[in-house]
C-alpha cells in the first residue's frame, strides 16, 4: 500500500502513517514532519503524538475543517526530507543521552532470568544491554516513559505474566525487543534488570522529560557506590515478578 497515508482519527485529528514497519531510520522522517507541523500550523495545532511509524496530528476544529487540515498535511508531506530540513529543533540532535545504570539483583530481580534465558554470563548480559545505542520510538504509558529499541536478540524476554503493582522509580526494564526506564513508581509488566539514578521526568525542568522521541540513548553500567553518589535509591524491589509461570513465547 502506498505511503504515507492520512487516516481519520476523529473530528479534529489525522493520523499520518509514514511507514509500515519499525525501523531506526523512521524517526528522523517522523520528527521532521512534527517540526513542519509546528512551524506551519501554528495556532491551529493542538497536539502531536509521534510513535514508531506514525504521527497523530490534533488540530483546532474551529480553525481548520478536516479537508483543510488534510490538504495542509499533504503539502507538508510533499517534499518532506529530513536531510534538507535543517538540524534545528526536536529530534535533530545527534547527541547520545547516557543513563547510568546499577545492574544488580536487588533492584533488577529479572537479571538472573535474563542470564538463564540467554545462556550468557552476568557480565555478558550487562555488556550486551549497555554496549549499544538505542533509538527512542515513542513516549507513552506514563509521562517520560520511553520505548527504546531494538534490543539484541539474546536479551529478548516476554513481559511478565502478572504485572507488578508497584515498580520503583528508575527501574530499568526489558520486554520483547524493547527497553525502558520507569520515571515514577507505577504498575508495570516489564522485566527489571537494574536501576538508573537519572530523573527521567521533572515538572520543573525545561521540556519536562529527559528523553524525547527520536533521541539516541546509551546505558552506562556503574557500581553501587557511583549509583549512590549520583543520588540513586538502593531500596530493593520487594514485589516478586510472576516469572515462574512465564511462557516461553
Amino acid at each position, binding site marked *: 500500500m502506498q505511503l504515507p497515508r492520512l487516516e*481519520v482519527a476523529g*473530528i*479534529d485529528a489525522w*493520523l499520518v502513517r509514514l511507514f509500515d514497519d519499525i525501523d531506526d531510520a523512521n524517526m528522523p522522517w517522523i520528527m521532521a514532519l512534527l517540526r513542519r507541523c509546528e512551524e506551519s500550523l501554528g495556532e491551529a495545532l*493542538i497536539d502531536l*503524538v509521534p510513535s514508531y511509524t506514525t504521527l497523530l496530528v490534533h488540530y483546532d476544529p474551529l480553525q481548520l475543517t478536516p479537508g483543510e487540515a488534510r490538504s495542509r498535511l499533504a503539502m507538508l508531506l510533499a517534499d518532506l526530507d529530513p536531510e534538507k530540513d535543517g538540524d534545528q529543533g526536536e529530534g535533530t540532535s545527534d547527541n547520545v543521552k547516557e543513563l547510568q545504570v546499577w545492574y544488580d539483583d536487588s533492584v533488577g530481580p529479572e537479571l538472573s532470568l535474563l542470564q538463564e534465558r540467554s545462556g550468557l554470563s552476568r557480565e555478558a548480559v550487562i555488556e550486551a544491554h549497555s554496549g549499544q545505542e538505542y533509538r527512542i520510538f515513542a513516549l507513552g504509558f506514563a509521562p*517520560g*516513559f520511553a*520505548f527504546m529499541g531494538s534490543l539484541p536478540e539474546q536479551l529478548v524476554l516476554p513481559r511478565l505474566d502478572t504485572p507488578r503493582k508497584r515498580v520503583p522509580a528508575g527501574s530499568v526494564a526489558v520486554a520483547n525487543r524493547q527497553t525502558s526506564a520507569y520515571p515514577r513508581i507505577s504498575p508495570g509488566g516489564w522485566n527489571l534488570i537494574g536501576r538508573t539514578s537519572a530523573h527521567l521526568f521533572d515538572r520543573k525542568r525545561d521540556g519536562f522529560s529527559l528523553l*524525547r522521541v527520536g533521541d539516541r540513548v546509551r546505558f552506562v553500567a556503574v557500581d553501587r557506590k557511583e549509583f549512590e553518589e549520583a543520588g540513586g535509591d538502593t531500596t530493593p524491589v520487594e514485589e516478586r515478578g510472576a516469572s515462574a509461570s512465564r511462557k516461553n513465547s
Partner: protein
Amino acid sequence: MSAAAGNNVQLRVERAGPLALLQDAGRFGVRRLGVTQGGPVDIHAWAWANHLLNNQWGAAALEITFGGLSLIAEGDAQLALAGANLEVTLDDDPIEPWSRFGIQAGQRLRFGSPKDGLRAYLAAPGGFLAEPVLGSVAGVAREGLGGHDGQGGKLQKDDTLIFQQGHEEGELPQAPSADERPDYSQPARLALVIGAQSAEFDGASLFAAFNRSWQVDDRADRMGVRLTGPELKCSVSSMISEGIGLGAVQVPPDGQPIILLNDRQTIGGYPRLGALTPLACARLAQCLPGHEVWLQAQALSAAQGDYRRFLRMFRSG
C-alpha cells in the same frame, strides 16, 4: 484572568465522596512526552457550568463523579451546576441541575447519589484557582499532575477550593432550555466517525456494531469505557503502537470495544473502528454501568460541524 482582584472565597471539603477533581479544558502540547490530555470527560456539561457564570473557556470547574461530596462555604458567592442530577442540596433545599445559585458563609452544599447521569460540574466565578502543572490544572491522578493540589489528587476531607468573589458586570446567561439538556435516562445514541482499521473488521461485525445495542460495562473510568455486546471480529489482533485520539473505539482480541476518554494512554496498539465525536464522549461519560448505548456512524464533515457549533457558543472571546 478576571480583571478585579476581589476577595478569595473558600469551599472546605467536609466529606470527599468517591471522586472529585478539578478540570480545565485539558493539558495540551505535551502528549508527545506520554502525558495524557485530561480535562472534563463531559465537556458539554462542564462548558455549561462555566457559561452560566460567564467564565472564559478553560476555567477550572469541579468534576464530581457519583456524588457523596459535601462542601462548606467560607464566604458568599454565586456558583453554577450542570450535568448529572446528583440530588444536590444547599442546606436542606434542593438545587436544580443546570442552574446558578447563591451560597452564603456556613452553608453546606451536599451531593447525594446519581438520580440521572453520573457526573456533575460545579463552577465558581472565574474558575477555581490552582497552580497549573505542565500548562494545565486538569487533575490526573495516575500521572500525579494538576488538580487542586498540583499532584493530581482527588479531593480529600479538609481540602479547600479557592476562587475569587465575582464582580461580573452585566447580565448572566440563561440556563439551557429543556431541548439543550441531554436526557441522561434515555438510551445514549453516540455519533462515531469511521476510520483507522474499520476495513479490517468483517461485514457481520460492522453490521452488528451499528445495529445492535451495547451496554456500558462496570469497567469504566476517566481513561475509558468498556462496552459489552456482540463480539466484533477484526483480522488484525495487535499493531505497532500509535497515537490515539479522544473517543477512539479500540477493539482488543475479546471483541468488546473500549471507548478511550480523556485520561487514556497517549499511544496504543489495538485495532480501532473509528472515534466517537467529543459530544458523544460527553454523553457516554454520563452513563452508569448497564446503560444502553447505540453507535451511529456520522460523516466526518457533519460531525465536525456539530462540534464547531458547540464550541462557537462557548469559546467566543
